């Protein structure tokens, strides 16, 4: 990162598949603040086929809304002086379906999994993982590469000094497939080799002539360590040089930006990583979109990202129903709904993805589906955010009582400090309490966890900005991007309904909550009272069953949500009983307006 230079006005855009969003940040009284956000339809596809049209339109909207002059014709004005010009322009992009990759490694659970993590971390969608032990016949692998037409392939395999023949076999598979990129016929497909150093020459011999081959350091040089940085950097470089450069208008946009354009999820990941590191916390970010749901997490400094490519709220909403099953969706819905009706409603949303719920019932149903999309995305994330597999673990006698296999998930909900939600369903829920409860129901945080949402989806902009000016990015994130919802206190355990679950002493008050209940304590943003939380003998709040914890609680636009429904959360299967509970919880947290259901 270059030395943070003096920037007074920053312009950032995110070119999404449907909308290009521009934000303007200015330094005022020594701190960076968001001034305004403008948006315009993305213009990558016909009839425009030039991404810069959408960028210019979104910047013009920023000009109109602020009265600043940022463009002279179609050129950005530098530097910022008075009401004119900017000091830096940065951008992210997910237009054209984002970055779609295939990865390959020798052993599925080892080098291939590390390769998948590198690709996901760089912001790619992993279309498929090929490994020598994936039980596919070689010709099937070749067909797969040819049919999927990825934007890029990451080939890994073998620790340094390990197997050569298996890696060469994979390169021969790629060669036989003779893959062609999705965009720009006539161009060579970028392939990154990040495997055994001893196999480099042989891989080069096979792939150099037919692909745009880059060779970087091994992403798994020894079994016990991943080295994903060089492969991720190479993915970002090649994304710019090969994939984006062939998308309409990007050659010009690349000249305009002061730092390389980042894939949108890669930028969000960079921001989440920065937050985790700066605040020394375990943090999880989730972005639930129309087609995909991304989850980013930092646990004890380990960053992971997953993208659930077919879990979303519009284009992929049907798939949420298919994957979760009707019963799992209906368990969140506090009224009876015929399954055929549910199926029809969901498929109708899929074929007309831009519609919005206009009745309360439809809103409740949609938020029920969102809970399942989020839950399934977290299951996938837990499966990918794991310790390295195949590693010999040194154990002491104390470990004998706490056996964890290699490859166990790094996601520990009790250790999680902050969840940041993003995407229309969470950021634009009519009541903020709805976003809070969707996150709580889907993720089931344990112990004490802060909740927030991204106000206007500017995490991508701030992520790419953090690569050049961390201060500006973190200040705007803290003051303008995050809407602090409050804190969730959720003891782990199960007790008979109605038994005392928890007692909280805070601000001179004593609050008691029984098992099976939820309670909301309003606490404004900025308030940080110390509290003593004492769980009953059935429950654990972080220190063991019945052991009290003293902590600083943070307020927010919703407040403190005490969730004594138990973990894991189990809903009654009897409809009437379930409706009664869901309605009681909704009422306790004032989730929906008080309209009598038919």
């Amino acid at each position: 990162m270059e030395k943070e230079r003096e920037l007074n006005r920053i312009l950032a855009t995110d070119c999404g598949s449907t909308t290009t969003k521009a934000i303007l940040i200015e330094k005022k009284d020594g701190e960076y603040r968001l001034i305004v956000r403008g948006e315009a339809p993305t213009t990558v596809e016909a009839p425009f086929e030039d991404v810069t049209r959408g960028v210019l339109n979104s910047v013009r909207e920023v000009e109109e809304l602020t009265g600043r002059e940022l463009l002279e014709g179609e050129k950005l004005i530098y530097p910022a002086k008075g009401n004119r010009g900017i000091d830096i322009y940065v951008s992210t992009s997910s237009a054209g379906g984002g970055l779609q990759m295939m990865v390959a490694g020798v052993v599925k659970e080892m080098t291939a999994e590390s390769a998948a993590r590198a690709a996901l971390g760089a912001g790619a969608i992993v279309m498929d993982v090929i490994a020598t032990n994936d039980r596919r016949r070689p010709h099937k692998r070749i067909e797969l590469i040819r049919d999927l037409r990825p934007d890029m392939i990451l080939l890994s395999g073998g620790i340094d000094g390990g197997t050569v023949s298996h890696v060469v076999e994979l390169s021969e598979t790629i060669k036989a497939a003779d893959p062609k990129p999705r965009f720009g016929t006539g161009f060579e497909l970028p392939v990154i080799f990040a495997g055994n150093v001893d196999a480099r020459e042989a891989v080069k011999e096979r792939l150099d002539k037919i692909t745009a081959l880059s060779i970087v350091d091994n992403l798994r040089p020894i079994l016990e360590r991943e080295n994903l940085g060089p492969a991720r950097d190479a993915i970002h470089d090649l994304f710019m040089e090969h994939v984006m450069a062939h998308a309409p208008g990007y050659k010009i946009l690349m000249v305009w930006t002061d730092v390389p354009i980042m894939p949108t999820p890669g930028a969000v990941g960079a921001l989440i990583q920065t937050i985790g590191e700066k605040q020394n916390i375990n943090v999880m970010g989730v972005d639930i979109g129309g087609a995909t749901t991304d989850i980013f997490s930092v646990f004890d400094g380990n960053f992971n990202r997953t993208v659930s490519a077919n879990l979303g709220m519009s284009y992929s909403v049907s798939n949420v129903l298919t994957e979760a099953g009707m019963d799992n969706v209906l368990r969140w819905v506090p009224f009876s709904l015929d399954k055929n009706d549910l199926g029809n409603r969901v498929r109708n949303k899929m074929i007309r993805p831009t519609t919005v719920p206009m009745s309360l019932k439809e809103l409740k149903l949609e938020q029920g589906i969102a809970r399942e999309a989020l839950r399934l995305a977290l299951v996938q994330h837990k499966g990918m955010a794991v310790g390295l597999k195949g590693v010999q673990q040194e154990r002491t006698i104390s470990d004998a009582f706490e056996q964890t296999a290699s490859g166990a998930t790094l996601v520990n909900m009790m250790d999680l400090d902050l969840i940041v939600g993003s995407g229309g369903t969470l950021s634009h829920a009519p009541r903020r309490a709805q976003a809070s409860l969707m996150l709580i129901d889907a993720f089931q945080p344990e112990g004490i966890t802060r909740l927030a949402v991204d106000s206007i989806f500017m995490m991508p902009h701030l992520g790419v900005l953090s690569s050049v000016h961390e201060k500006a990015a973190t200040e705007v994130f803290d003051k303008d991007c995050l809407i602090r919802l409050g804190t969730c206190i959720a003891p782990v355990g199960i007790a008979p309904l109605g038994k005392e679950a928890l007692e909280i002493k805070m601000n001179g008050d004593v609050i008691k909550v029984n098992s099976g209940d939820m309670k909301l304590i309003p606490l404004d943003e900025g308030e940080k009272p110390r509290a003593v939380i004492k769980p009953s003998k059935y429950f654990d709040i972080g220190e063991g069953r019945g052991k009290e914890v003293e902590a600083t609680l943070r307020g927010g636009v919703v407040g403190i949500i005490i969730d004594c429904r138990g973990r894991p959360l189990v809903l009654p299967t009897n409809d009437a009983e379930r409706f009664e509970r869901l309605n009681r919880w909704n009422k306790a947290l004032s989730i929906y307006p008080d309209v009598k259901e038919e």
Partner: protein
Amino acid sequence: MAHAYTPGLKVTTNIKLRKERRLPLKGDVIVKIGDKVSADDIVARTELPGDVETLNLAGKLGVMPNELKQFMKKNEGDPILKGEIIAESSGFFGLFKNQIESPIKGTIETVSDITGQLILRAPPTPVEIDAYMDGEVVDIIENEGVVIESKVTFVQGIFGIGGEAQGIIEPIVHNPKDVVEAAIINESHRGKVLIGGSYVTKEAIETAVKVGATGIVVGGIDDAVLKEFLGYEIGVAITGNEDKGITLIITEGFGKMNMSPAAFRLLTHHKGDHASINGATQIRAGVLRPEVIVPLEASTKTHKTKDYSKGVEEGETVRIIREPYFGIIGKVTELPPDLEVIETESRVRILKVKTEDGKILTIPRANVEIIEA
């Protein structure tokens, strides 16, 4: 956003339609600009690379990979027949020869001295594309395909399954509210594109497949019926490759839904005419909707179509596309500029719609689509 509405589906009496016909890989275009083509005329052809077969040759011969080349009877690039000897180890004193035969006809692509693997490629598969609709070749995409233009009646559906097909239009109900039951489908419907009303049963679809009907165009279908017919659930709306023996086009949506009167009128008017249909649907970037195309005489005068890109206007006919009013058709009476709070407490841009029975409904603009005519 300036245009918070869903552009409607086209139901057009006659327009000039252009269709791009592209090969999956570069190849030869076999027509020229100005040629008149029929729907089933071939316009371009190419060859897809053949499938690949791998053979662990070193393992089969019992030799080291780096020794492999000395045992080869054929070299990289050589054509080979099925059963032909590829490699041979000499054995003891020339006895007990170990001969490896080619499992397929094709060419030897690579022999690896590191893995000992042999890659064989089968002969290429020829691929041809037809014109899909009657018309004239108006443009050539060099080595890739052509653009066909024709004056047509054009009806778009909202969702479909099955790919391109052709057939004679045959209305099988009298009213857009009628349900398509198995009992009204018979042997005379072979090769026909059946026009239905509000709903189709699973038995009706199965009967249509049995009698060899080309397609069914209908207002609605139950999700459960589609699932039973396909044998799986549709997760993401990318369709067109289903091989179920019929192309199904749904014009309104899931559930029982009357076909829009305009579409029904138009399709029944073309009874007996030849149509090109396609169920392929894709709702993500680059929207693709299913379609019914009926080519018209070249001399037919085309109507000017209205430009709907500016969004919905007062007096326009729209269809509500979300519960609890799904499927209701009405006229826009008011377009208030300010955001309004609806029942969900969301603040959205709305419009007011007067329904056919005179009721005024307040609807988010995102929840209507213009009925383009």
